[in-house]
């Protein structure tokens, strides 16, 4: 299971990198979304998998308890990456409205240079 997940995470990071390197703002946003999902999957995998582990309730569950920390961290990370990708998408749209293109190479030269 871990090996399968590791392979999947690797593919997702590769896909995200490819998308981020494309000359298109919307693809950069999509690349970032893939990246953040890959990172969250990585966190889940770091917690480990086993069908024998019980839910983490002390005094209620029997046997080995699963580690509650990775899911806890992922919840926070999901909220943050959701908010940031929404913001990034909005900004990408504003750039498109301002300049009528989402190709960063076709943007007019920087006025500060």
């Amino acid at each position, binding site marked *: 299971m871990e090996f399968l997940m590791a392979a999947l995470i690797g593919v997702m990071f590769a896909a995200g990198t490819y998308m981020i390197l494309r000359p298109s703002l919307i693809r950069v946003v999509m690349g*970032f979304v893939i990246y953040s999902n890959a*990172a969250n999957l990585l966190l889940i995998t770091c917690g480990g998998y086993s069908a024998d582990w019980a839910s983490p309730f002390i005094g209620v569950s029997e046997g080995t308890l699963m580690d509650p*920390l990775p899911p806890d961290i992922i919840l926070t990370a999901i909220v943050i*990456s959701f908010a940031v990708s929404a913001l990034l998408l909005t*900004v990408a749209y504003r750039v498109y409205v301002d300049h009528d293109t989402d190709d960063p190479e076709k943007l007019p030269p920087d006025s*500060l240079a």
Partner: protein
Amino acid sequence: MIILPVLVPFLTLVLLALLNGFPRLERAVNLASCVGLSAFVFWLLGEVDREGIQAMVVGGWFAPWGIAFVADRLACIMLCLSMSVGTLVLVYACFTAEPRQERYFFHPLFQVLLLGVNWSFITGDLFNLFVAYEVMLIGSYGMMMIGASKQQVRQTFKYIAINSIGSTLFVAACGLVYATLGTLNMADIAVRSAQLEGDRAALVTAVSMLLMVVFALKAAAFPIFFWLPDSYPIVPAGLNGYFAGLLTKVGVYSLLRLFVLCFRQPGAELVLDVLLVMSGFTMLFGVLGALCQWEVRKILSWHIISQVGYMVMGIGLAAAGADVALAAVSATIFYVVHHIVVKSSLFLIGGIADRISGTQQLKEMGGVIDLAPGVAALFLVAAFSLAGMPPFSGFFAKLVLIRAGLADGQFAIVLVSLITSLLTLYSMSKIWSYGFWRSSSHAAPLGRYRGMMVPTAVLVAFTVAMGVAVEPFIRLANDAARDVVDPRAYQEAVLVPVPAPAASLDAGEAGAR
């Protein structure tokens, strides 16, 4: 108690968001909060200096499990800088902020920034550090885009994109640290990594390398610095003083905290060696970038990069034996203090020069010395200090750093740092001779600037004071470095012995009922 630097900005930002639309009231509340918190953090620094490290674990848990907040000397020094520079920048911004910016939540966003920066200094937990970074970054995204001109929007996209990719790597690194060490508490990381050996230690070094990339990105170290000169010039005048002073230094602080204090497995020096090489390139590329710019804010932004190189050099030198490491870390801390003060003041002076001459382009500026001799004097002091001329703080900062480098026998990096220092002086004299010297095309200053002089003069006075009365600052930097190089005091303060598990469980259940 030590959580106040996080709590106060949070409550203030809620209040300020509600007060939006009443600019006078907002300014008063914002300033009162900043001044009050500044007083508190200076008191806290005194307290920590006398009594030792103070720690707090939230939520009724014990240290490796609960989220820890730790105030050691280094964290307190950074908090004092954050709050005092923040307060001065706010005073300055009261003279420069446009009504439109204040209507678009300038004041709440400013507190978000303070919240994130203070939080990342005081936290003792790696994942909590990530959250603090996000808060700080979201504040900076908002600030950068305030007003939303075409220029701002397109540069902010780059800034958000590069930083959010960095943050994703940060989350991934947190997971890998947890998987390899089984803890995210910084004091506990120091304990557990020191016990590792063989393959396990090498694995942790590899994971920590990923964290190093994240922090180097935030600190704008070579080769991931290119985002900085594009994004900082679009920050509203005044506020860019806070950005330039504090934001990249949060990255430097995290490098210092993680790689000197936390990761202690055999082979951890590898990361520091890589940092030392990176620091040389950072210095050189930063200053060379500055030399070919003709816009004041761009020149100053490139100098941030080159200065970050000096601080990273100090961290890299910490790989050597205990004595050299202590001297190097102490030099780094002193340099950070000097740099935050000087860099902020230079950006504020740049804003005043813009107000007087109506332009940021050096070739059109000219003659500020005729129109406003006081501003020229402030610039001269700050620029000399940045380049490292005695008797200002920059001279002593470079002196202690280079002595640490010579003690370690790293002559190449010392040579690079001296060349960089010379080129910095050249670059500053370019601003001086084009922007301040020549004759002016205006008969009088184009705008009112006297109010803006006050906070700037306070910062410049501080760099002079740090140079003239250098002893107490060096003493404080040495003491702060001792707690970072030797983690025992930090661990003892955070990892208090846990009471028997049964007792703590009963207490938890009683609390739940």
